[in-house]
């Protein structure tokens, strides 16, 4: 028998709490999902949940209904609260060597995990020599988690999601998911939040040919901020001074 690390003990007991729902003193409803959670785990890490538990109807009923959020995103957020991770894990995002020719004609399927378990089946399988990655990229998932972390002020989740988005950008820059993910980035957080915006701008600046995709052009036209930041980066990279 392997001895378990103290840290492992805590982490597995937290996961157990989430799965079993024992000792739960707070319910989070979102779409069809009902999450039996614990104030002690959640409230200290998010000022939103902290305040909600003290306020009006939520305080009285012990139920928080997140009526405007994406149920899957909320599920992953709660997974994060208990495991400090959410799927797909960082270790499952494989870094590819960049390939030459972008091919915008690929399937646009987005992977939506339906369970807490079987992640091996969901491991993305990039084709080593192929010119274009296939399979789900999860770009949008990470962007959504980043946004919800901003909304409810969960700092750790924001950092984690930013890291995942960046890893994905290095592997899947040519993925068909990219344009819609960029759209999510530019609409789900305030203009001043540069956490993902900088990653997007750098990605495009390094591979300007992406602009040939019509979806990309549409983005450039819609988000002046994106276009401007790109130009600004180009200018700086050309040796321009920006005080």
């Amino acid at each position, binding site marked *: 028998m392997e001895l378990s690390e103290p840290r492992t003990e805590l982490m597995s007991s937290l996961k157990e709490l989430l799965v079993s729902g024992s000792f739960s003193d707070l319910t989070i409803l979102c779409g069809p999902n009902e999450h039996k959670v614990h104030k002690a785990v959640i409230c200290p890490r998010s000022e939103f949940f902290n305040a*909600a538990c003290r*306020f*009006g*109807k939520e305080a009285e009923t012990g139920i928080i209904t997140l*009526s*405007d959020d994406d149920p899957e995103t909320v599920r992953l957020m709660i997974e994060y609260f208990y495991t400090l991770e959410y799927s797909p894990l960082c270790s499952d995002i494989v870094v590819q060597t960049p390939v030459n020719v972008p091919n915008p004609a690929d399937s646009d399927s987005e992977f939506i995990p339906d369970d807490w378990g079987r992640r091996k089946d969901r491991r993305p399988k990039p084709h080593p020599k192929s010119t274009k990655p296939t399979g789900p990229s999860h770009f949008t998932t990470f962007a959504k988690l980043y946004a919800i972390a901003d909304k409810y002020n969960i700092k750790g989740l924001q950092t984690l999601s930013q890291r995942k988005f960046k890893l994905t950008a290095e592997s899947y820059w040519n993925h068909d998911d990219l344009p819609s993910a960029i759209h999510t980035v530019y609409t789900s957080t*305030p203009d001043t939040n*540069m956490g993902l915006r*900088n990653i997007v701008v750098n990605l495009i600046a390094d591979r300007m040919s992406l602009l040939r995709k019509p979806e990309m052009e549409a983005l450039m036209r819609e988000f002046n901020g994106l276009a401007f930041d790109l130009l600004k980066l180009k200018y700086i990279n050309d040796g321009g001074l920006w005080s």
Partner: protein
Amino acid sequence: MLAGRGGRKIRPPRRGLHGDEIDFENTWGIIASAFREIHTKNASKLSYEELYRHAYRIVLKKKGEDLYRRVRNFEHDWLSNEVRGTIHALLTPGLLANSQSIGGTTANERRFAGERFMKGLKQAWQDHQVCMSMLADVLMYMDRVYCADHRRPSIYSAAMVLFRDDILRSDPSDHSDMDVLSILNHVILEQIRMERDGDVIDKHLIKDCIYMLEGLYDSEIEAEEQRLYVTSFEEDFLASSREFYMAESELMLRESDAGAYCRHARRRIFEEQDRCRSTLSETTTLKIEKVVEDELIKNRIHELIEMESGVRYMIDNDLLEELSLIYELNARVDNKKAELTRAIQKRVVEMGTDVNSAAIVASQAAQPLSEGPDKGKAPVEKNLNQQTIAAIKWVEDVLQLKDKFDKIWKVSFDSDQPLQTALTRSFADFINASSFPRSSEYISLFIDENMKKGIKGKTENEIDLVLEKAIILLRYVQDKDLFERYYKKHLCRRLLMNKSISNDVEKQMISRMKIELGNNFTMKLEAMFKDMTISEELTAGYKTHIAQLGDPDPKRIELAINVLTSMTWPLETMGSSGDNEEGKMLKCVFPSAIERIKKGFEKFYGEKHSGRTLTWLAAMGSADIKAVFPKVPQKDGTLKERRHELNVSTYGMVILLLFNDLPADEFITFEEIQARTNIPESDLVRNLQSLAVASKTRILIKDPMSKDIKPSDRFSFNEGFQGKFHRIKVGVVTSGNKVESDRERKETERKNDGSRGFCIEAAIVRIMKQRKELSHQQLVAETLNQLAPQFKPEVNMIKKRIESLIEREYLERIENAPIDSYRYLA
């Protein structure tokens, strides 16, 4: 970094494509109505998630600024419309009036109106805080994103500012410029005034209002010193307190005594400290303490100390507790306790001067007798005795004074070091006062008296105490050299005349002085003791020597001798002090029997110590004579020969022996006696007075019989002398230690100055030998410094000694030196 916040100042034109405006108005409507519910304490049905989500959406859609402004306006309207009225309604005409002048309302009415007003204000403030923290929860995302990005105060802070402006700074009546805040200040100050006057007030209520003032700021800057409490209330509080205590101190000084004043002042300070803790803010403690200390102590300490019931009265009546209160108060406002120190010093010097004056009066009262026409010595002796008593009384009085102030210092002044120094200085001041030159002599006399009589029958501890007393006083004496001179003189008499009760105690005293004043001081005194020891050995040795000669003469005269080193003993002060040089030069003619012994001892001594010259001091010796008086009829009718042993002075013996060879009915004149004995006139007069005038020892008959001795007087042997005892002591006048007459003291001082001259010269030479060159100023300073343990020379004397040393070429002036300087000439 791309696109930092700074780069966002220029925004791209907005496109109103999404119907955002309509959305905003709808959303705001939902939020505003929820806020109204919150303000009316009806929030339990509100969904936090919903409100948060709406606010979040608005901010995400870049309407943060609009939302912020709407919330502020909402709060402003709420405070202005819903809250302000209720507060203003609490302000009764009485309250409005008394904040300017005393209106027609009774104190009690004003008091209740004030409390109602404070309660209302406190309630409004607490409600506002609770509601605003709920609003802030709802608007969290706006605070975090919009306010942080645009550097706006959080909505909570902004709402607090609104409370300040819309409530506290609102003007409740048209005809006054008092706002709610200044009325609040007045109400609180009035309550404090009531409490100072002994009423019980609602401290918690005031404290709650103070919390409000502490939570609000005077301007946009949220700094400690910008709190409304500091800028608005505290200043008023300190100013009105200053006024209050200024008036109170004046009243107290007029109407109560110093002790009560002190107790009251102390209580006031504690009260104010307590008030800051329980009712106001601890940040005020030090400031209000200062106000009370200023008004009750600092500005009044002089008056307080000088009150009729002040420090002088306390000292005179030993009011130790009151004195300690004064000390405590003075120490609060002044590290140095200058006022108290000054008063204490003044009183010490006053009381010390009284002691001095009493001693002078006692001595002057005695003097007219000695200066009377009758210059007989007996009454003078009596007077001198009185003076000695005065001297001892002086010592006791000074010690008593010291005990008194020591106790005060210990019990009341917390053994304060600087005060002890001040006390010591003041004691030294009156003990060394130029108007009272007798301290050294008196202290020495005190010791003398105790050595001779005082310590008889006392235990070791008691004796220790007496010695300690003498040492205590000695510490104050500045001119230790003068003391040494007196002490030597007095010791000399005690030793030679065997007056000391205990040799051990004498030695204890010497060793104490050694510790106190150093080796140099006691060297000569110790030498005197050594001479005495050697003399005992000599006497014994001589006795053995005579016995060995084998000439057992039954009429042998026994000799007890003291050989004194002339430099060590103050011989000039012995015997006939008035005759000076003349007296010393005369050599008494001894009768042949005595002369033989004298020669014999000189030979014996010469063999032991060749080269030493012995000078015989007849004036100091004494003799036991076996005298036989002829048979006279007794009471029972028988005739009986009477034998007496007469103890007389050496001179007395010399005189009496003259009559051995004289037929019974013959006489010798004074002049004859003087011619045949060569005894100095004054000594002769005194001895003849003892032998022929004093009634109990009238061994000679004087003709004519009178007190005075005249050169023509005739003396004959008193065959009919009757003595009660076998052994008769013929008292020799002036054998004890007495206070000096003024003339004697001047003489003593003159001699002392003479020896000071040598000390000063020695010091100057020592200094110059080491330093080689020195300015005049420095030389004088160092000389004073070196001599401080012995005495304090006059600067003039130092100058004269320098001049003299230059004349004798020990020093020279340095030519052309910028300041007067000297050089040592080896």
